[in-house]
């Protein structure tokens, strides 16, 4: 990271931000951390759990955390919270139409997950929207620029909306190193030039932020404090200042 390039951690968005990407690209973790990062300077932040295809590890698992930061989370009705059905609450269209300062839509994976966006076309009409595609080059099918572009085309066709920028989310969970982040940055920078779409930001594990200063990263960096963890790990603590070290050693069986 280039220390003279201003506060690269200062990420601010307004309006409607739609987070899309392939399965397991990290959309939900990005959506939660982005909402928390934007909250201190935003009048109101709202997150819409639009993941209708994934049965586990959804935004709804972080509802207490988001509520604690006065971030509104739009979910299916409580009765259907564990339903194995794609339930689209009417509150979603309402949240889009009445979008306040910042509304983040966490969409399900692949073109299948993005299909729901097409059904919300009326609500989106006339609004300014950023649709950002999350890319982790360590995931199958998005480990190459053509792979990412193919995924983009499939998502756009299903969503009937266009991707407007990229989020670089290169990581290998607890095996992530600074090199993973640097290589991921170069990958997504290349993707940005190949596609002509801007690189909105990259992510890095909160605990590694301090170790990234040896090489230039010329885009904002969103520190990630993992929230969607399996039961033998603790979610990382969200703070307004320096990120904490992870609470527990990663499971290693």
């Amino acid at each position: 990271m280039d220390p003279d390039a201003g506060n690269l951690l200062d990420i601010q968005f307004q309006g409607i931000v739609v987070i899309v990407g392939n399965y397991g690209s990290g959309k939900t973790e990005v959506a939660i951390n982005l909402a928390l990062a934007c909250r201190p300077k935003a009048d109101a932040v709202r997150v819409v759990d639009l993941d209708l295809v994934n049965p586990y590890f959804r935004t709804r698992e972080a509802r207490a955390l988001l509520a604690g930061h006065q971030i509104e989370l739009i979910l299916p009705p409580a009765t259907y919270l564990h339903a194995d059905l794609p339930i689209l609450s009417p509150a979603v269209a309402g949240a889009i139409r009445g979008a306040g300062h910042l509304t983040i839509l966490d969409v399900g994976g692949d073109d299948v997950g993005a299909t729901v966006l097409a059904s919300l076309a009326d609500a989106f009409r006339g609004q300014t929207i950023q649709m950002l595609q999350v890319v982790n080059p360590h995931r199958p099918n998005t480990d190459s620029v053509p792979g990412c572009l193919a995924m983009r085309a499939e998502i756009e066709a299903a969503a009937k909306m266009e991707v407007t920028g990229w989020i670089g989310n290169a990581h290998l969970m607890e095996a992530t190193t600074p090199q993973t982040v640097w290589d991921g940055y170069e990958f997504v920078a290349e993707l940005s030039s190949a596609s002509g779409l801007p690189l909105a930001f990259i992510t890095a594990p909160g605990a590694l932020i301090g170790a990234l200063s040896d090489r230039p990263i010329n885009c904002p960096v969103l520190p990630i404090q993992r929230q969607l963890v399996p039961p033998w790990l603790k979610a990382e603590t969200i703070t307004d200042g320096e990120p904490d070290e992870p609470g527990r050693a990663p499971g290693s069986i």
Partner: protein
Amino acid sequence: MGKVLMKGNEAIGEAAIRAGCLNYFAYPITPQSEVAEYLSRRMDEVGGVFLQGESEVAVGYMIFGAAGCGARVFTTSSSPGISLMSEALSYITCAQCPAVFVNIMRGGPGLGGILPSQGDYFQATKGGGHGDYRLFVMAPASVQEAVQMVMEAFPIAEKYRNPVMILGDGLIGQMMEPVEFPEDLVVKPTNKDEWATNGIGNRSDDSPNLVKSLFLDPVQLNSHNLMLKAKYDRMRREDVRYEAYNTDGDYRALIVSYGTMSRVCRTAIDFLKEEGLEVAMIRPQTLFPFPEEAVRDAAGKAGCQVAVSIEMSMGQMVEDVERSIQGRCPVEWYGKCGGEVPTPEEIMDVVRGMLKG
């Protein structure tokens, strides 16, 4: 290929391909549907076959047919789907065909729920179908171990000419971890010409191989069952697997736990150690054959006051733990099976409570 970040379900599909299995028949069900989704793309890329059956009953017999021809074949499903395949599992086992079945368990009984569970322990280890048969049952605790077990399952199935069941809970299928695919686990099939209905080929004997599960002659059927029993006894002698954790020093309690549940227990054991309370764990990696000797020895260690089976089921493993320990110490149970996974703190309280009581 270096490390990639994969969902358990995707990694299971890729591991099967890497192991040389190019035949996959399945029917989607949460929480394992991503295997089918992943392989619908990948099987096409590698020239393999993915056929979605009209039901799990049909899938079971597709497996039987392909396995009987000597093809490497596997399926994946989740609890209710495995129930529907149980008839075929009995037939396949009787006919001695190697095949791999993966069960990414969800809460039951009945339709239950879609969250993680270990409620199919009895079904997997004691037979969900009819007759005297056993499956070779492996239980991974991580996505990497699921990869390894799937790759090893094919040669094990061929060694015993018996189906292998990989028993994972919903978390194994749904969570993401970095994985590698070890090249050294790729083993070519060796014995199929001796039994598979793959044509007479160059065999000198002109009597064809026959794959069947019908034995109307009672003497013949009894002999067949004795031969199957000898095979299950051989599994017990040659292929028991387990991991021992914190068993080197003295300890006051022994946990027996498998799958992702054992990872929660491991975290609890680490925290209890910080408090000065030593607890050990035996993690069965094979549920059949069960690591009886390892559990018996660990429970019989001086100072071990109690053994506790910790499961995401209502005590289904307890009888195997009791049978192994043979009264060397009291055996207790703790678990949940609605889809909630017990936390490390709960496990710590349970162990402390049992030692006080």
